[in-house]
């Protein structure tokens, strides 16, 4: 398979399931650092450029979770590929503010910031979002934040439309001149041949944490399974749609405040990679997207060859990592009803950004003259599967909202769940936390009922 590494076309016969990070360091690209090898630190950040509808799009991504097969036919950029004579404005800003101390995390941060400048979707005040997936243990981030403030002088470059972007960044010395030829070169590179036996890989952001290398990866990204669309009654989310696309989807944001809800879910590089299908099929009891869509009473389509069957998402989970998924079936899409409901998503983790929840929970309902209709409550981290809290949801149905009712509901929830002591908290804490999150759903959704503060 072939890809472009910085300004050189590389051809390799290495297995497609090995981490790109390992490959790069093996061939002597040492500006890419290994620190955690699980997507949590950003020291191995690279830019991955791909042609989408004839436009070259780059994303910053952690190369430790990026199998080699995923870079076939694409442009991979490391810090070596950004260096020019002297320092570029991003590098200079870090020098001027003391934004680097030991220097181990620095190349990854420079890459992430370059990704910010190339990426058209980010607004000025989101420059920090671009580096929220980079851990620095020396600076305490203050000088890094000052570096980004210095860089805001260059923001005007970013406002140019997507097509003009790369030439303007070359003019601003943020990108080397060779970037102008990449688009043409990529058109001539052949994609990797498809094969269909082996382990399915969606975003791989958990798979490649659990397995550093896959012997037989089948990349679902090559199937046409991503995107958000709707018909008259439903909004559909393709299984391979990444979390960031879901978060910023116009369709979903027309009925949900999903942009805000998912802003604390992992970090940008991971959000751009992790898919809803991967989140659901992985069946982690704590998957944020699964919990989110469970409370929307979502349905899923499971496809086998030309046929598909549609089931409720809540019926998909049969036990710890056990699914109602037949051999050969692929999760095709997730759909929710196209309607506005009151909706709340809560998540508490050890660290509020870029962390796995201790407990997460979501609730949707309608309020009909103080009467609760169609409530759907879900919670994660409190049992072996991502839980749809059936009994609590039924209990709430058609009842008048009051603090007593909600307290009663929380008591039913407490009987429905079976949390255990683990690395994310004690069972006692998780019980208490879920109770509080249920209270939080209602207090947040109904500020017009001050009586609910009695829940505290």
């Amino acid at each position, binding site marked *: 398979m072939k890809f472009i590494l910085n300004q050189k076309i590389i051809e390799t016969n290495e297995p497609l399931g090995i981490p790109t990070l390992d490959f790069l360091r093996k061939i002597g690209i040492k500006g890419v650092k290994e620190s955690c090898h699980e997507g949590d630190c950003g020291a191995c950040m690279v830019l991955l450029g791909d042609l989408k509808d004839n436009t070259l799009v780059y994303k910053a991504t952690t190369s430790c979770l990026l199998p080699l097969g995923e870079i076939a036919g694409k442009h991979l950029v490391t810090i070596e590929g950004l260096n020019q004579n002297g320092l570029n404005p991003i590098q200079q800003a870090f020098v001027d503010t003391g934004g680097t101390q030991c220097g181990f995390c620095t190349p990854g941060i420079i890459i992430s910031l370059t990704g910010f400048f190339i990426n058209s979707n980010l607004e000025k005040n989101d420059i920090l979002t671009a580096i929220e997936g980079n851990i620095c243990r020396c600076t305490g981030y203050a000088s890094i934040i000052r570096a980004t403030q210095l860089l805001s002088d260059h923001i005007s470059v970013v406002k140019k439309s997507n097509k003009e972007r790369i030439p303007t960044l070359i003019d601003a010395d943020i990108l080397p001149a060779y970037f102008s030829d990449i688009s043409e070169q990529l058109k001539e590179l052949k994609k990797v041949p498809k094969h269909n036996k082996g382990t399915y890989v969606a975003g791989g952001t958990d798979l490649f944490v659990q397995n550093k290398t896959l012997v037989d990866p089948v990349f679902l990204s090559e199937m046409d399974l991503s995107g958000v669309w709707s018909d008259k009654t439903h909004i559909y989310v393709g299984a391979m749609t990444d979390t960031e696309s879901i978060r910023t989807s116009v369709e979903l944001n027309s009925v949900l405040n999903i942009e805000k809800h998912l802003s604390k879910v992992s970090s940008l590089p991971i959000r751009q990679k992790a898919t809803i299908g991967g989140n659901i099929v992985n069946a982690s009891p704590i998957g944020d997207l699964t919990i989110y869509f469970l409370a929307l009473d979502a349905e899923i389509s499971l496809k086998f060859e030309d046929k598909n069957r549609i089931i409720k998402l809540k019926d998909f989970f049969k036990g710890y990592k056990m699914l109602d998924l037949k051999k050969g079936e692929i999760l095709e899409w997730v759909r929710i009803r196209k309607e506005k409901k009151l909706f709340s998503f809560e998540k508490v983790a050890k*660290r509020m950004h870029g962390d796995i929840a201790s407990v997460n929970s979501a609730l949707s309902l309608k309020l009909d003259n103080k009467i609760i209709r169609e409530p759907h409550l879900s919670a994660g981290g409190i049992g072996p599967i991502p839980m749809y809290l059936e009994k609590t949801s039924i209990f709430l149905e058609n009842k008048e909202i009051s603090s007593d009712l909600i307290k009663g509901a929380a008591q039913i929830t407490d009987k429905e769940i079976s949390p255990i002591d683990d690395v994310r908290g004690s069972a006692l804490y998780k019980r208490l936390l879920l109770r509080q999150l249920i209270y939080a759903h209602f207090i947040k959704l109904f500020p017009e009922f001050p009586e609910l503060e009695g829940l505290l």
Partner: protein
Amino acid sequence: MNDLTPPHTRGESVFVDDMPEPRLMLHAAVFASSIAHGKIKNLDIQKAEKCAGVVKVLTAKDIPGINQIGGIIQDEELLADEKVDFIGQPIAVIIAETKEQAKQALSSIKIDYEKLPAIFDPRVAAKKGLLIAHSRTFNLGDVDSVWDKCASIIKGRADSGGQEHLYLETQSSLALPGENGRIIIYSSTQSPSRVQNTIAQVLGCDMNAIEVDVKRLGGAFGGKEDQATPWAAFCALGVLYTGRPVKVVLDRQEDMQMTGKRHPYSTDYVLGLDKDGKILALSAEYYQNSGACADLSTSILERTLFHVTNSYYIPNVRVSAYPCKTNLVPFTAFRGFGAPQGMFVMECALSQAADETGIPVSVLQEKNLLKEGDQFPYGMKTENCHAKRSFSEVVQDSKYEELKRTIEDFNVKNRFIKKGISIMPICFGISFTTTFLNQAGALVHVYNDGSVSISTGAVEMGQGVNTKIKSIAARTLSIKLERIRIESTNTTRVANTSPTAASSGADLNGKAVEIACEIIIKRLKNVASEKLGNGIITIEDESVYQAGIKTEVTWEELIMLAYKKRVNLSAQALYATPGIYFDREKEKGEPFAYHVFGSAVTEVTVDCLRGTYTIDKVHVVHDAGKSLNELIDIGQVEGGLIQGIGWMTIEELIYDNGKLITDNLATYKVPDLRFTPKINVKFLEDADNPAAVLQSKGIGEPPFMYGIGAYFALKNAAQAFRKDKDWRYSAPLTHEKLLLYLHDMK
């Protein structure tokens, strides 16, 4: 500007694992104990030896010299022989053609243990008399005689957790065979001479056979002071047996499982105050969880005792500390070196005193701050004391009183969002408390084109010591920075180096460089005098001045002249901090060259519904002496502060029967960009420090302890929500602990 930033930002800075791999290099993987305590009944490596690519499997039996790496107390085997004392203890090392092959062969090692009971709680260990070394007690005044005079006596318990260093570069080492038994080690260590010395002992050779070279570290924070040594020793043993280069780079999980961290402490304290809140007495017992072997624990324990009173004067003190032997990985140096644990206890006692007496904690703090000439429990008296000054400046600059009122107002108006505030004064002694370590060497060469090469014992790990040293040399030689290059730290150029630690890297090595440069300048002045004749010679801005008048002789010409006159253009110097000593029999002395002072105001917000929090803002007034480099020093304050806040809040080590289960970045959370508060750092003006190089002060560790303020600001906010429940002084104050305080599961 930090000198290193250009190559850092270009990804061109070379760390051990980035070095071009030598031909025929082998890789090592470490086989470690999976049980916390037991006897090794049988260790079978035969199958592993036959695995693909395996060249050698090292066990204790392969060690030609002494199987011992204990630096202070000889109680730690390099490779466990008959007994294991913690999970993660190295037992064997597989050396193979590739990293993958070395790791794969690990599972082919067969081992049988006879399990023994394991202890993880330092108090339990103390009760059983299981100590790493004897306990220590510091005494001042007469504690027993003053309790009766106290208006209030505060009794309590405080616990603080361990902390993973999480240097981004994991432990790494590469060893190469040289001629005549020479082994060259590239190690990511803070202590090149310690690596050299230990390997010589393990191999049974002279130290001069071992060359250790250190270019830079990708962070260390104390975690590579003692704990970098075993990995380097494994590589050296590998070279000995294979004759080929050997590299080991731990992956993150191995590093977290196998290397030591900050010591957890558990402490009982009694604090006595008069009716106005003046502290009359402190009595306390500190149980240090030392882990399975001594490592640096005894020195860390000692520093805890040096800092029990933090920034306060207490006339009567009796404090005892116990280094408790448990079956956990040996705990080790981490920024602050035991002082944060001691100072946290002091603040807990004051906070509890405020709760019990009703006197605001800031009043108690201010009333008891150190003033000039006050005595510490170890006998030393304060000199150039800035405790009160930094406290009052931070109160003023942060508008503390106004903030406090605003917060109280906010808390009345908001049901479940509460704000909190705290002040955290610090006082930290600079010097290794083991007096002989306070020495540093420098070797300065001036080449005959006028360029300069400097070697010292200092290791660059991101703290900017090389930049500081360069500026000291440039000032002393009166030449441009561009002419100077700082070399790697290498035991063949500078011998018998002390670790780069104790915030003293720039102090000690900078001073040695200053002395060496002065020696050369003196020689150069003689050369100039000979050429120019009478009149006082000075060198300024690369030119020779005679009686204050600029001559035509430039730096380059002067150097060439000296070279042709066969004048020595190299100088070696040793600096030894004068006047410090400590008598461990009497537990009295003057162990520190000076103290660093400062104060921080921390503002936080607690979501009492969910038990979560944000650290909003920290205002710091810090005593940096006359800063050698403000950009670097501000970075040290900010970075130390955030690490300290992390230790107090979200960083939690969780063990399951002695096995660390928070052993990766997904489960052990360090502060990220979003967690970072707004930070405002100001340096005290007119705080020149005659006791260190160019009036500066050490800066690495002291700011860490400002982070303790976050704990008490969170307590302040939580107690605005409820105060009917006893506060348990237990750090880190995780979301879990906070929620369990705020609410009861009825």
